């Protein structure tokens, strides 16, 4: 068993209580932060700890906090992004169900670091159970004096509310989420101004992923050097919640050192592939990352290693594909998802993704033509000229399918059918 930080209090089928969390050192970091450190010291500690955003972009949390100007107007907002809608990703759900108070404590400390007195947890509607857990635990935290006016006798006050979404992938995008919370159609807004300057109600707004915020109390309590020492790689820091799903024996969410090798995650923790199946490829970080070629099976799973190899860690949610699964069919499923979830605001995304879907549908159903390959290559480049990251994400599986599995695509075209056992093609 490797060092468990975020999952220290994880029990099967049970949520850690406030008492359990406090017994394991919970809310000590908040007290330490409020009594010992200034907001700017907290920001420096997070920066030194190399805490990179766990929602997919990997942006340094400390740096994000530093973009809130000292003389920025009040009130300021901390948003916890629990709109986990990246296909294959479920770590935030597992984390909320395991030990929710570290997220709340992380939000309060993050709030203190930029003097934000209002926190909003934005949560997707299929996580209704998690939303209720958070509502209950926020209220418990308030009763215990960790939220509300003059927290632990300090001059800092904060309130946290839960905002339920009604279900749309784009709401996970920072600027779209800001529109969603304000009761507007959730189109992304192209910066500048950045949300940390003008976000919710034109006031400074700092958004973090659930897992990022959960790391904050542990960093404050144990120091940045300790946090960095948790990682297997020098470029990473902390632990990472890796989700594994698809063709593995034991799908699940595992807390492992940042930079754990992909092969180790799949074989030692998710039990490897079931008998009769061989590994073909995986998506390392959800549907908007690139298929990995086989020679990267041993890659160290941190932001920097994948970036160096021309890939993205994304949410660290590994979807494993075996040799019997058709990658054209899988990509068609994902592109159909992106086409449905596109907000339709900008042309490359609204028009380009359905075009790709149509071509992939033809190839999968035996109507593919030679020229379709170059059409797909061109279009997957073109759609990246979009407003936000949805379309470049949608292009990632398509482009990597053509790069690493062109033979498989060509087989569909030459055989005029899907060479794999036909699966359900309804979408």
């Amino acid at each position: 068993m490797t060092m468990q930080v975020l999952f220290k209090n994880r029990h099967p089928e049970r949520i850690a209580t406030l008492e359990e969390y406090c017994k394991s050192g919970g809310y000590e970091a908040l007290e330490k932060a409020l009594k010992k450190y200034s907001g700017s010291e907290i920001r420096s500690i997070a920066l030194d700890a190399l805490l990179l955003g766990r929602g997919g972009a990997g942006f340094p949390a400390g740096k994000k906090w530093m973009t809130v100007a000292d003389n920025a107007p009040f009130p300021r907002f901390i948003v916890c992004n629990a709109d986990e809608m990246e296909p294959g990703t479920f770590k935030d759900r597992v984390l909320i169900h395991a030990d929710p108070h570290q997220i709340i404590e992380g939000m309060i400390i993050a709030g203190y670091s930029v003097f934000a007195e209002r926190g909003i947890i934005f949560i997707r509607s299929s996580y209704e159970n998690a939303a209720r857990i958070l509502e209950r635990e926020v209220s418990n935290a308030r009763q215990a004096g960790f939220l509300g006016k003059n927290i632990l006798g300090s001059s800092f006050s904060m309130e946290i509310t839960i905002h339920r979404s009604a279900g749309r992938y784009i709401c996970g995008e920072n600027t779209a989420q800001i529109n969603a919370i304000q009761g507007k159609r959730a189109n992304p807004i192209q910066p500048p101004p950045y949300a940390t300057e003008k976000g919710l109600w034109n006031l400074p707004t700092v958004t973090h992923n659930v897992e990022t915020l959960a790391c904050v109390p542990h960093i404050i309590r144990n120091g940045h050097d300790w946090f960095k020492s948790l990682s297997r790689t020098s470029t990473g820091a902390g632990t990472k919640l890796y989700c594994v799903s698809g063709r593995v024996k034991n799908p699940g969410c595992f807390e492992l050192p940042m930079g754990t090798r992909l092969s180790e995650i799949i074989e030692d923790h998710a039990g490897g592939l079931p008998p009769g199946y061989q590994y073909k490829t995986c998506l390392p970080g959800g549907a908007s990352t690139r298929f990995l070629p086989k020679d990267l099976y041993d890659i160290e799973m941190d932001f920097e290693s994948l970036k160096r190899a021309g890939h993205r860690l994304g949410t660290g949610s590994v979807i494993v594909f075996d040799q019997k699964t058709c990658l054209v069919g899988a990509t068609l499923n994902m592109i159909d998802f992106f086409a449905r979830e596109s907000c339709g605001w900008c042309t490359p995304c609204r028009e380009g993704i359905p075009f790709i879907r149509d071509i992939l549908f033809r190839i999968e159903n035996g109507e593919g033509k030679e020229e379709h390959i170059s059409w797909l290559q061109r279009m997957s480049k073109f759609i990246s000229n979009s407003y936000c990251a949805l379309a470049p994400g949608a292009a990632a599986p398509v482009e990597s399918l053509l790069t690493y599995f062109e033979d498989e695509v060509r087989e569909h075209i030459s055989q005029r059918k899907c060479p794999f056992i036909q699966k359900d093609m309804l979408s």
Partner: protein
Amino acid sequence: MIEEDFRHFLENRISASDHPREQIVDTIFSLQDRYGYLSDELLAEVSMLFEMSHLEIEEIATFYEFIYRKPVGKYVIHVCDGVVCWMNEYGSVLDHIRRKLNIDYGQTSHDGRFTLLPTCCIGYCDRSPAMMINRRVYGRLSPEKIDDILKNLD
């Protein structure tokens, strides 16, 4: 058409918020929980509650997957068609429900109990294939398990 005391409940919740517009989705969810779906009449009520135009509310309502602008059954079944459920043959889950309830996507059963709709990845990939019924999730589905689940809904 909203009962007076329920309207008061909604109004109080809206006015307690620093920014009333934050409450739009919650208000629509409350109305759906009570009346089933967001009818044109209810949409008009929402626009009055928030002092916004019908179009502004419509723009929000039609944007989201779990806001229903057409009548739905007592139970709305959303079958997850994310890529992991695709690999785990959500199609067989769908076929079983279709045959059993004699409805297709977008349809409601004759007794008004069930509506069948798709949904994108619901984040239960470790318990795939999965579905949601009235915002409750069921995973590791098999035909027998689906039969049990449907039977146990009152």
